[in-house]
């Protein structure tokens, strides 16, 4: 069966076809939720962000410009909402410092779940702008061009930010004993 493209689904949504939006929601629910989760770490916040993203997408579908890829558009909204969520959270709470693991060690000595938690913890030590590019690249699988479109930054800036983010993340993971020097 041929999968209906995003642009066609958007067109149908704008014509009042709710089922088309349901398909878009199923298609993007997982990446949007996971992006928010990796940006904020808290599952409840991520859920709220994901819900807000889809409501904004629905509300603004008629403003979507099909010359851009739909996923770039929805990921941009997801990134902005996540950054906004972080901004709001940091204003009302002290910066969330992850408690260190009790038994840090090389990643082959711990389970996947714990490794995942420790990588997430390292990710949270990055500035939001650096975390964003890591999430876009490593979680959502975006290309440099996609990231440039999503962040509305020149590709050169995106690459520089990504390389810096990786360097910083590498240092944190080395410090935590998660990576071998």
């Amino acid at each position, binding site marked *: 069966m041929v999968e209906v493209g995003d642009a066609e689904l958007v067109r149908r949504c*704008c014509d009042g076809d*709710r089922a088309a939006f349901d398909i878009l929601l199923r298609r993007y629910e997982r990446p949007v939720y996971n992006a928010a989760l990796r940006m904020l770490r808290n599952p409840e916040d991520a859920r709220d962000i994901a819900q807000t993203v889809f409501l904004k997408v*629905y509300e603004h579908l008629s403003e979507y410009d099909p010359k851009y890829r739909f996923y770039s558009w929805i990921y941009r909204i997801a990134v902005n909402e996540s950054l906004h969520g972080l901004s709001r959270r940091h204003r009302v709470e002290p910066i969330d410092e992850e408690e260190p693991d009790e038994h840090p060690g090389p990643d082959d000595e711990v389970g996947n779940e714990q490794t995942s938690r420790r990588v997430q913890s390292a990710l949270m030590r990055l500035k939001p702008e650096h975390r964003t590019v890591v999430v876009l690249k490593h979680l959502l699988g975006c290309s440099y061009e996609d990231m440039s479109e999503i962040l509305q930054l020149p590709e050169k800036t995106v690459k520089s930010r990504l390389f810096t983010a990786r360097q910083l993340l590498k240092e944190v993971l080395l410090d935590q004993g998660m990576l071998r020097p």
Partner: protein
Amino acid sequence: MIEDRHIELIHAELDGELNSEQRAELSRVLLANPEARSLRDELNRLFGALAQLEDAEPPRGLHASVLDAIGAHKGPARSVRRSWYTGPAFRYAAVFLGGLLASAILLGPGARQAAGPDISELVGTIGGQHAAGRGSPIDRVELDLAQVSGAVNSYQLDGQLVVELDLTANEPIEVVATHGGQTVHFSLGSQPDTSPERVIWLPTGKPQTEAAVQIEVYGGGRLLHRDSLRASRGG
């Protein structure tokens, strides 16, 4: 020593962004430079660690809650936000009414405003309508930051203090306005475009002429700018 260009090639290789010519160039670099090989190994290990981030299952009920929420809408082409743009007269009236409503509901006597809810949707975000009819502003704060530019104005309209934000945010920001013990939060810049957003706040009660309107702008988790506006010409 690794040249910046070679570092870029190593990242690009792991990102799957090399063409055949660049791949050949990188092969030569890796053969000749042990530091380059070491960097690639380190990055490979980092990629491996990042691959351990587990893909979480979205919470049950998210899908249904989104569908429920959009059930309240008539459809994307006739969204609530768009209806604010239907005409200047309606726009002004709607914003004025929205501000009063927000003030009455959220900022009325007895309400606790220190960490008030985000009322930007309720007050309304409009464009293209100046604060015509209010005369010249009592005070004006101009912002020219990388994250946001524009101005915040204060007016008096028949004894009512009016605070108008006329800002263009390049990234998500939050503006916190405080006057006479009342605080409101405006979220701007969360839309994909970077068009100007105009928001009006009408604090409740008699204007506290002796008290200035405090404005704080937050972005990326930090305070970007703090300023104050006079609430009356004599103040």
